[in-house]
C-alpha cells in the first residue's frame, strides 16, 4: 500500500491560515491503514487546527468528511454539493488523491496535509518499510524476491557495492545491505547462479512519468494504444 506521513502541524497551519472555511477531506484506504489520513486522523487534525486558530485569534471553521478513496471519481462526487461552501479543501490523501480532488474541484483551493512516502509493507504495529519503487521493469524473479532497485540505496543490479559493511548499508548502518539479503536468500534457495550473471542494463523508459496504463479489457477496438 501507499504509506504517507502527516506534515508538521506548523506547516499545515501556515497553509490554511488564509482560509476561513476549510473542509478536511480524509481518505479511507491506504493512508487510513498507515494512520496518516483516515477518519480518525482527520478528526485529530481538525481538532488541532481549531485549537490553534482559537489561540492565534483567527476566526476559522474546520469541517470533516472522509471518503472511501480519493483516487476514484465516484467517491469524489459524494461531496459535490458541499464544496461550494468552503474556501479550501485540506486533503489527507496521498499525492495522487490530492491531485484528483483538485482536478474535480478546480475552482476551490486544494491543499495537501500529508507527505507521501512510499509503496510499502507493515513491519509491525505502526512501522512500515518501502518495498517497491514502481520501476515498471520487475526483476524479483532474478533476485530471490528481494528488490535491489528498492532495497539497495543505490538501486544496484549487479551485486553489492564497496560500501556493504557486515551486512549493513553505507548510507545507514541500521539498514540491511540488500545484496547481502539477496545473496543469503539465493544461497538458501540454492540459486546463486542467478547472482553470477551480468544483469541487463536498467530500463528507465517504462517508468517515465506521468505513466499511464489502460487495461486491455477496457480498451475499445478502434483504439491503438
Amino acid at each position, binding site marked *: 500500500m501507499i504509506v504517507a506521513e502527516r506534515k508538521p502541524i506548523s506547516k499545515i497551519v501556515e497553509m490554511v491560515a488564509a482560509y476561513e472555511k476549510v473542509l478536511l477531506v480524509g481518505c479511507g484506504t491506504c493512508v487510513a491503514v498507515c494512520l496518516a489520513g483516515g477518519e480518525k486522523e482527520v478528526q485529530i487534525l481538525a481538532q488541532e487546527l481549531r485549537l490553534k486558530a482559537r489561540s492565534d485569534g483567527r476566526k476559522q471553521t474546520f469541517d470533516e468528511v472522509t471518503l472511501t478513496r480519493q483516487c476514484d471519481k465516484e467517491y469524489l462526487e459524494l461531496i459535490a454539493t458541499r464544496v461550494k461552501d468552503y474556501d479550501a479543501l485540506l486533503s489527507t490523501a496521498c499525492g495522487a488523491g490530492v491531485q484528483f480532488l483538485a482536478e474535480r474541484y478546480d475552482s476551490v483551493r486544494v491543499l495537501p496535509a500529508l507527505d507521501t512516502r512510499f509503496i510499502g509493507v507493515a513491519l509491525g504495529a505502526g512501522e512500515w518499510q518501502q518495498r517497491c519503487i514502481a520501476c515498471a521493469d520487475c526483476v524479483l524473479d532474478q533476485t530471490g524476491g528481494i528488490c535491489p532497485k528498492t532495497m539497495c*540505496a543505490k538501486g*544496484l543490479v549487479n*551485486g553489492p557495492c*564497496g560500501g*556493504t559493511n557486515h*551486512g549493513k548499508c553505507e548510507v545507514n548502518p541500521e539498514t540491511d545491505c540488500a*545484496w547481502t539479503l539477496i545473496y543469503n536468500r539465493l544461497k538458501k534457495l540454492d540459486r546463486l547462479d542467478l547472482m553470477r550473471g551480468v544483469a541487463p542494463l536498467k530500463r528507465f523508459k517504462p517508468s517515465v512519468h506521468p505513466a499511464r496504463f489502460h487495461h486491455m479489457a477496457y480498451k475499445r477496438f478502434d483504439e491503438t494504444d
Partner: protein
Amino acid sequence: MATKLQEALSKGQFVVTGEAGPPKGVNVGRSLEEVEPLKELLLAYNVTDNQASVMRVSSLVMSVKLIEHGLEPIFQITARDRNRLAIQSEILSAYVMGIRNVLCLTGDHSTLGDHPEAKPVFDLDSVSILQAVQSLKEGTDLAGEKLDGVPTDIFQGAVVAPGADPLEPQLIKFDKKVQVGARFFQTQGVFSLEEWERFYEHAHRAKVPILLGIILLKSGAMARFMNKNVAGINVPQALIDRLDKTDKADRPKVSVEIAAELIRKIRSMCQGVHIMALGWDKYIPALLEQSGL
C-alpha cells in the same frame, strides 16, 4: 599505445600506484605539488572522482593536468553523478585528452558527502561502466550505435574489497568485472596476510593483475575508527596495540614498518601495490625502500 601501467603489468613488473586528489576549488597547483616529488617512485596516480561524494575539480581535468606535468593518471569514473550518456561521453572525452587508464567504480552514495540533498544517479554501476568501456573499445556505444573513431586502447580497471564480509558476494562481483573486461584491479586497504590469502585463493584464477591496497595507519584511534566505520577494513588488534604503544613522534616510522611488513609477505601474491597515503605522501619513499621495492 599501451600506458606505462599496462606495459609494466603485461611484462610482469611489480607496479606501485598512488593517488592524486583534485582540489576543492581551483588550486590545482597545490595538488600537483603534493604528488610531483613521488614522480620517480610511482608509476601512475589514481585521480579520484568527487571522492567521498565531496564536490571538487573533475577527475578528467585533473587527469589532464597530470599528463601536462609528465605524470600518468588512472582516471576514476563513478556512477553516482552521471547517467549513461554522460559517462560514455566523459570516457570518450578523456580519451580525446590523452587519458588511457580508466578505473570504473560505483561511487559512494551522495548522502555521505557535502551535498547530501543531491540526486544520486546510479543509472549504471561499476560492472555496467566496464561494459560501456568494453563496448566503446569495440566501436559501439551502449545503445549499439557506431562510433566515428574508436578508443581501442583504453586500459580499464576496477576495484575489489578483499575484506568484505560476507566475502562471496564480493567475489561473485569480482568475477563479473573480469567477465565484462576489467584488465586490472586495485583493492581496498588490506591489513593481514590471512585476509589476502582468503581472497587471492579465488581471485588469482582470473589471471588479471591485482594491486594490493595499502593504507598508512596514522594511529590506533584511526584504525579503530576505520574498523568501525569503513566498509571492508579490518585492522587486526595486534597492529592497533602496536600503534597505541608508540609515541606520536614515532608513529610514522611504525606505520611504515607495518605496511612494509605486509607488502613483503604478500608481494609474491600480487602484481603491485596501490598506496593510499591519506596525506602521508612524504613517507612513501621510506615505505617503498623498506618493502624492498
